[in-house]
């Protein structure tokens, strides 16, 4: 398999195992090797998407909007290899941890905002981004993706993780995924989709581009 990892992401042997890794200050107790820190796909949906070989279209130095940054586990890796990275999170407690992650990363911009209200951060987040990464795990995941399409360049990518149980606990995950994708396709073209179950139960990874 010839895979193209973004520049700044490598598969390196850390702790006796080949793992995805980026260069930056350690954040969540992940194993490190010199300046490289392991990117744990069990703790990161985007990490799982890359680990599973999905073509996420990132090349390194990209400009990124990250929705649902929580305490910064994944977005710390993104900021390690990407360019300007805007991190939106609406819960105060995890955002406090996100602040320390951003302290040591000069191109990571934390924002305590609601991803359902892009007009509250469109005066800060620039247009024409290379990627919107979304991991909000709440109801209405397709709607959040559609609302944030405005930040993407025409050839930009949406890298979406859909959590079935956040939409509906009573229905099977496949039925939920179909419904989310159908709504998504009104504004995006789905390029690739894959269950992330090896790392995250009942999650779907989606790569899409704006229509």
């Amino acid at each position: 398999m010839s895979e193209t990892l973004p520049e700044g992401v490598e598969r390196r042997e850390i702790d006796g195992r080949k793992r995805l890794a980026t260069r930056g200050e350690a954040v969540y107790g992940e194993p490190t090797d010199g300046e490289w820190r392991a990117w744990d796909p069990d703790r990161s949906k985007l990490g799982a998407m890359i680990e599973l070989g999905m073509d996420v279209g990132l090349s390194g130095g990209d400009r990124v909007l990250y929705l649902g940054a929580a305490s910064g586990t994944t977005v710390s890796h993104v900021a390690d290899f990407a360019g300007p990275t805007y991190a939106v999170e609406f819960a105060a407690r995890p955002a406090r941890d996100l602040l320390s992650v951003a302290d040591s990363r000069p191109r990571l911009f934390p924002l305590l905002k609601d991803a359902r209200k892009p007009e509250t951060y469109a005066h800060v987040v620039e247009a024409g981004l290379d990627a919107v990464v979304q991991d909000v795990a709440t109801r209405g995941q397709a709607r959040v993706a559609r609302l944030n399409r405005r930040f993407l360049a025409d050839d930009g990518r949406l890298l979406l993780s859909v959590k079935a149980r956040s939409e509906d606990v009573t229905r099977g995950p496949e039925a939920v995924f179909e419904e989310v994708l159908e709504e998504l396709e009104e504004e995006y073209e789905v390029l690739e989709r894959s269950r992330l179950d090896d790392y995250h139960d009942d999650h779907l990874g989606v790569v899409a581009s704006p229509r």
Partner: protein
Amino acid sequence: MKESEGWFRDVEPGDLEGARAAITDGRADEPRDWPVAAVETGFAADTEEYYDALHGATLAATRAAVAEREAADDRRLIHMVRAMDDCRRLSNELAERLAEWGSSVDEGGTGVEYARTVVAGESGPADPAVRSLADRVVDLADEADRLEDDVERLAASVTPNLAALAGPVLAARLCSLAGGLETLAKKPSGTVQVLGAEDALFAHLRGQATSPKHGVIYTHDAVRGTRPEDRGSAARALAGKLSIAARIDHYSGDRRPELEADLAERIETIQARAGDGPEGDGHE
């Protein structure tokens, strides 16, 4: 009016407070290429300088917004647990009144459960006034249950370590008694140990009683499940761990699951004394 200005429009370079307010309160309908716009309008010499300013501004804005939101969440938790306790107490009081009234006709019953059977039409007199009162009892009890669900959810996010150690409701009561998570975090653990036992404490200070061994933390299994002679030690150990948890929640916010294991081990040691004969320090 369509808004389409960047956060930096009315901000002087270097004015961090202005930048913070603009990030927090500003809006725009559509994004633009802000770095380029900022250079064009002279806010920054180049995009690197713009991004440096943006980093400082977003850190300041988010830090302030986080602190403000946490304080608001705190107050909300306190109101919520107090309302829950009020609803519970009122519904119990009214349920007693209802049972007295209702049982003049059949055997009656007690408590909210009885009120539920009256509402369901399974017992009680046909008197509409009795049925209406039963409705109020059940409504209040249901409201208390809903508030308890909310308290559980909010306590787990406002004070995750304390909620894990004390249980979310006791965690919320401790915040309520102290007047906030911050004040709780600043109290010595000896004070946390007797929070909620203020009456007993003042009686003791007036020389009318022995000092109380525990306040509201009495409801915790670590105290209740320990034999009376050792409850003072258990309460002291528990209060110590709860104080640490409250401090972590206030000052850092990260989860420390090891606190639960620490507490369990301490309490196990204290409870094991029960088998070791009469020595122990339950007489303080």
